[in-house]
């Protein structure tokens, strides 16, 4: 690990960067945290707003069981303490996108306590694992959205997001490089998507991170941190950390001090800028929401949450590796839940793991990349893939024939058997036919034959190539080799 240690080189020596992330993940649910209103992305403004979300007089929040369930399942997926007794608090502040004048959140007694995530910051070395602590996950309401571009002098409010359930996943300040933060965010996103508790669409805002950064001389106590708000991609998080850490080092080396403040990240410049400092920080006047009873979870509910958890990426990766798949490929195959699901279906259809992993990570991923399709849109189904691999294994198709068949399958959606039958791409192992072609090749190339016999054995490949070419690639290469050797030895 030491060779990977990330340090910022300052004028006064090396600096270490300390990073913590607060990730806001929108809970996948048909309804909002405390109301029955819908939560679809991209709906017309103010079409997904209940009386509760608009904070009409006399309206009351009622917790949505599904949102709680998803947060509990997420907590279980990061090995966290699930608090059987938790409570909602009000965070009070005024803003036009916050109809109640308070956000219902959980400060004092969060739903999920201490957990952790094991991440591999170095893709090339997936076994180099670092454990990142997660302090808590609490559940809270999202705010609405102000629209300043609808009218020359007025601002409009869209309350579609108002009241949507968020999980705030708060890490410990355990990360020490942009790469670690990137790996943490990527892994967290992957787990949320496996669990199905968040769609992880960072570009739609359903997952965003507040990035806490401080710097210190290695071994020194923590420095003062800044918080860069609402960064919405893994790359931007890494950029923001890098910029912010360098900025802090420059300030400190200039004899200045870091101000504890909230900052904003500008994706166009890759820089952060001050948004507000601690002096004008709000006093949120948190107190327990008197409209809601404490949340008490019974064993049956927890058991149901546990039982409904899917196999998670680490377990899947270990299973693949145990079946002989390389660590790198296993990592690639399990990074996205859709790919892992596809690969599992391929294995279930009978494909041998090693060959299947080779084929998916090279042929299938390559083809999908070329076609600009996601794996769940693949024109070739897992069972068709398994069939193709079976035809290779039983000698019906050579590697190169398999590639041709696969291309046609991608085009037509046909099964490999259909393609083979229709295009006559079946590999021939008929020694009689192969012998006849070899004899013809040898007869046509007396010069090369003479040189081969004269000791230029490298020409063996030439005869293989000519034979395969004459058979339009359909000959079984192993048999061609075997027969060619025999016939060259004979004559």
């Amino acid at each position, binding site marked *: 690990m030491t060779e990977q240690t990330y340090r910022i080189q300052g004028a006064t020596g090396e600096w270490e960067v300390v990073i913590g992330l607060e990730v806001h993940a929108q809970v996948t649910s048909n309804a909002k945290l405390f109301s029955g209103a819908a939560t679809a992305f991209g709906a017309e403004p103010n079409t997904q707003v209940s*009386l509760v979300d*608009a*904070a*009409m*007089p*006399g*309206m*009351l*929040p*009622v*917790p949505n069981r599904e949102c709680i369930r998803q947060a509990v399942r997420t907590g279980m997926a990061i090995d966290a303490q699930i608090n059987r007794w938790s409570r909602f608090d*009000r965070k*009070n502040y*005024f*803003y*036009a996108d916050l*109809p*109640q*004048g*308070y956000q219902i959140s959980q400060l004092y007694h969060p739903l999920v306590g201490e957990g952790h995530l094991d991440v591999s910051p170095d893709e090339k070395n997936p076994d180099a694992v670092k454990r990142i602590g997660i302090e808590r996950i609490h559940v809270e309401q999202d705010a609405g959205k102000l629209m300043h571009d609808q009218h020359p002098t007025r601002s409009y*409010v869209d309350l579609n997001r108002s009241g949507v359930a968020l999980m705030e996943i708060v890490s410990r300040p355990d990360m020490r490089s942009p790469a670690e933060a990137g790996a943490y965010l990527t892994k967290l996103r992957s787990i949320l998507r496996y669990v199905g508790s968040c769609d992880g669409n960072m570009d739609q805002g359903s997952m965003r991170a507040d990035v806490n950064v401080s710097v210190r001389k290695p071994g020194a106590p923590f420095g003062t941190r800044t918080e860069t708000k609402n960064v919405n991609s893994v790359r931007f998080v890494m950029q923001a950390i890098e910029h912010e850490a360098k900025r802090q080092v420059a300030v400190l080396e200039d004899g200045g001090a870091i101000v504890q403040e909230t900052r904003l990240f500008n994706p166009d410049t890759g820089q952060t800028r001050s948004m507000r400092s601690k002096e004008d920080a709000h*006093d949120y*006047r*948190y*107190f327990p929401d*008197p*409209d*809601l*009873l404490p949340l008490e979870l019974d064993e049956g509910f927890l058991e149901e949450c546990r039982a409904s958890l899917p196999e998670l990426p680490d377990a899947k990766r270990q299973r693949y590796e145990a079946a002989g798949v390389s660590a790198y490929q296993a990592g690639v195959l399990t990074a996205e839940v859709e790919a892992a699901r596809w690969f599992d279906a391929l294995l279930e259809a009978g494909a041998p793991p090693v060959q299947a992993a080779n084929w998916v990570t090279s042929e299938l991923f390559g083809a999908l990349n070329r076609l600009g399709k996601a794996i769940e849109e693949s024109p070739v189904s897992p069972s068709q893939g398994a069939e193709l691999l079976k035809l290779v294994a039983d000698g019906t198709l050579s590697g190169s024939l398999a590639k041709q068949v696969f291309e046609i399958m991608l085009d037509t959606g046909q099964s490999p058997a259909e393609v083979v039958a229709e295009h006559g791409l079946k590999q021939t192992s008929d020694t009689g036919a192969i012998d006849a072609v070899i004899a013809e090749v040898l007869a046509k190339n007396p010069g090369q034959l003479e040189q081969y016999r004269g000791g230029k054995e490298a020409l063996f490949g030439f005869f293989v190539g000519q034979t395969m070419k004459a058979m339009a690639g359909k000959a079984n290469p192993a048999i061609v080799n075997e027969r060619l050797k025999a016939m060259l030895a004979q004559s």
Partner: protein
Amino acid sequence: MTELTDLGIAAIRDGVRAGDFSAREVAEAFNARVAGAKALNAFLVETPDHALAAADAADRARAAGEAPKPLAGVPIGMKDLFCTAGVPTTAASHILEGFTPTYESTVSQNLWDAGAGMLGKLNMDQFAMGSSNETSAFGNVISPWRRSDGGNAPLAPGGSSGGSSSAVSARLCPGATGTDTGGSIRQPAAFTGISGIKPTYGRCSRWGTIAFASSLDQAGPMARDVRDCAIMLEAMAGFDPKDATSLQLDVPRWEAGLSSDLKGKRVGIPKEYRVDGMPAAIETLWQQGVDWLRDAGAEIVEVSLPHTKYALPAYYIIAPAEASSNLARYDGVRYGQRDLPEGAGLQDMYAATRADGFGAEVKRRIMIGTYVLSAGFYDAYYTQAQKVRALIARDFEQAFERCDVLLAPTAPSAAFALGEKSADPIAMYLNDVFTVPSSLAGLPAMSVPGGLDAAGLPLGLQIIGRPLDEQGVLDAGLAIEERAGFAARPEAWW
């Protein structure tokens, strides 16, 4: 012959069922009575058509031989804290002027479902904050009562449900809804010689009721006698999935269960409720109440509620804290009043809207609540007050190991004159001293009229019960009612 407006809920219900008179006649009589009582300023909105429509539905149903609904033919008054679809609802505050809900509160809907009709929306202390109705943005309600000793100053009807108390005692409606956060049903009932019950917290849904202090607010009926309260509460109460604090319990048949025979019951007398400076008339009435309940078969025991003196300070931390947050939604953005000074930004709009929209008492409580929740003060005030609240609840639990209900005065004085206490918030808050502890503990409690003081003004006795034991409270109330024979009513001067 008795006028229809002299009848209470049970009598109207039974008369309509028997065909002694039509529901329409009843509604018309009360509509006329409401229209003629503007001097009391009890109603903010009159809804005669609502009352008539419900009455006609009741008459049609009876003509068609349908089974009568529990409140068929009974018109009532609705405190303006309850949102009513299509009828302006303001909580007696400027900030909600012009607001007409598109939805119906659960409690009011329950009443309409039971066949009741609405005579109008009743005036109240603004956002239910007050004990005299003087904080209404639309002028204070005046009590129909006058002192008999020559003092003719207009009297407070109590608060915050002062429109309700005034209207019921002046026979403008046979019953009215109230809400009680720290005594807002019981104290006005006591001031006007009527009955009112605050049920166990969670019995009545809070959905659609404008919030003052969520952990304390409870709706309840105000009516002329105990039976009428039981009938009305049965219609108002019930589990509501839209209120997370609503109790998932069936509504008992309180009216059918009424019994003034208290044999085998124990009545506790909390010694801490004997406060300095309590008028002799109240002391005397309390003793009278003890004698009445003993006469009804109950055994009397003295009990102690040692943390009583901390109840009022704790209440005046918790209630404003919740209110400061609950009232944040009145910001001028979505509904109600908006003050947008020339060139104003968002913060200016908030400030102008709220400065102008809220009354002085509401602003005082928002400021107190904001203060007690702010960083550095939270533990000293809010956390401490919650501890006191737990101790007070424990006091009651321990007392109820020795008795079934508690008997105490409802308020430390009879109705005071309008203006008498409005300059001194502490004096006003002290009026809640006997009602606040049971509110903090979420217990059912009611006030029934016991008699008149030397000036001819009504005094109330309060019965406090165990959680969910509204029946025990109503039964003790009935025992007092039968023995007190309270028949006094205000002379119509309006």
